[in-house]
């Protein structure tokens, strides 16, 4: 598989490939599309920053979707229903050859709209002290437009083969989600690919409840009706 790259490695060359007219248009279109920063202040982004802001998520979904021209508006995407599903520890499918334990995945009953993509990010901060740090993003699952059905959150083999310790992805495949049911399973960004506009949704932890060690409710086993249980 391809080596992971930083997002700027995708966006910066794309900016350089624009025509001078396109670059100027990004600059002056930004003046009419105020950006709200982390402190809630409205500001005008310079042309490159506006280009980066609009293409940040599209570069993750698919480089080919990146906008060369500033979008006509900032129309947000539609909300989509993504169900989180868990096979808790100990669940077994009778009569099948494979049993999955502590497994979580996503289920899209309806296809994503044609102009919508989703980016699922997962990661848990594993410091035992539970310091107030944001989780490190360990894995990204992209759901392209019109995608539907089950989506595995399993990290591809070798994705972080050279890492260890806190980067062990096995932790988030389900066991970790089960160990930390107080944390969401992940975050999903729903992106309108025609405008680059994104809304965020929290993916609830299917093992949801209270932290480990407390008498918390167990997740219900999910049993496929037929075929391989692998989602």
């Amino acid at each position, binding site marked *: 598989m391809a080596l992971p790259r930083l997002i700027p490695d995708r966006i910066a060359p794309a900016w350089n490939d624009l025509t*001078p007219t396109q670059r*100027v248009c990004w*600059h002056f279109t930004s*003046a009419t599309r105020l950006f709200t920063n982390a402190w809630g202040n409205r500001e005008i982004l310079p042309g490159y920053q506006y280009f980066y802001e609009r293409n940040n998520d599209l570069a993750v979904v698919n480089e080919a979707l990146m906008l060369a021209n500033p979008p006509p508006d900032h129309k947000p995407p539609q909300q989509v229903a993504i169900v989180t599903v868990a096979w808790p520890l100990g669940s077994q499918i009778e009569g099948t050859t494979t049993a999955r334990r502590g497994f979580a995945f996503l289920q899209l009953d309806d296809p994503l709209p044609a102009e919508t993509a989703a980016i699922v990010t997962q990661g848990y901060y594993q410091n035992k002290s539970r310091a107030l740090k944001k989780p490190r993003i360990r894995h990204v699952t992209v759901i392209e437009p019109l995608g539907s059905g089950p989506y595995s959150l399993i990290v591809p083999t070798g994705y972080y083969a050279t890492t260890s310790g806190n980067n062990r992805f096995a932790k988030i495949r389900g066991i970790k989600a089960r160990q930390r049911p107080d944390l969401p399973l992940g975050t999903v960004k729903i992106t309108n690919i025609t405008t680059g506009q994104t809304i965020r949704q929290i993916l609830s932890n299917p093992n949801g409840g209270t932290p480990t060690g407390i008498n918390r409710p167990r997740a219900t086993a999910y049993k496929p009706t037929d075929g391989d249980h692998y989602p």
Partner: protein
Amino acid sequence: MSISCTATRVFTTNSINVNSGSWGIVSQNDGSYIFGWTQGSDDFPYDSLGSWLRSTDEGQTWSFNGNSDGLIGQVSAYHSNIHPNITVAPYFNPPTNGAGIIRTINQGISWTRVLDLSIAPSPHGRDVWIAGIQSYSKTHALAWGTLNGDNQNPPQTWGTSADAGATWTTHSAWDYATPFDTMNAMGIAEQGCWIASYTKGFTDPRFAWMANTTDFGATWNVGASMGGNNTPPMETGLAICCFDKLNAAMAGNHSNSPPDDNVSAWWTDDAAMTMHLVSNSDVINWPGGSGNMLCTEVKRLTQDACFLAFENQNDGTPGSCWRISLDKGHTYEIEVTQPSHVQTYQIPCGKAVVTKDGALLMALWQSNDYSTAEISLWRAPIICA
């Protein structure tokens, strides 16, 4: 994707003396804009009243905010905002050989004089004047001009302020061997490189030279020489905008055989060590005729784009020309559309700012018959479609 830019007039002053008139626009850190101009009079065009307007809607409407009456001299065209509500502006009073800087801390409602220079008249006919002021941080400002028109070495040619224009330190020329006549223009890049143009030689031949500094003016590196063997080669009206440490665009009056003038624009990619004429010379460089760039503006728009405005009367029809370059001043392919009647006026071009909603804002001197004149304000949104 294409760019269009159409200018419309948003304000016109009352009639001013045809021989006077100076003007400028500056953006304030509070989101407003200040526009100032001088009234002049037939008896004494330079002993004038400066009037100041303010706009809080990106230059669409303007209202009176004060005047600088009582300050001798003409408030010149260029001024710079360096702190919220603080604007500094040069003033100019040739009859008394005075020049200096005035300052407002209330967006033009009232003004005080913060620098006075009064120097003996020049035997070469060059008056004391301050050409422009720029700011390069919220507290630091730079002024330039010919502060000493006399044949003295070294002449005072530029000044700096580190306290938002409250006090100023004047500096001498960098080349004492040949006193130069006029400090024409300066450009400043955020990275700290200044580029300046000056005309050297009180007698023929006179040349325009370029120089740069990377230590805020402590030392200067003399670069390209430009101009011809006759007067006045790029004497006045030059404008410079710096994109970064090396790249800059420049425009000005360039004459080898007066009274014919060439309207020319240049670019450099080595901090003015070498200068290059723009490649679409049929658009920018008019040989012969009476076109001139005595009123010129080169304004940086983005990291690569700039706006050029200059007077063009080369074909016998006075008018102004406004163009946009997308390639650091190498070419100027985009023309700002003006109402047709404007092009029948003689319009030396004023100074421009870019509004936060993406429009050019320009102030122009215009006269239809040379018996009356006025200053008008123009707004040109840059539209992408």
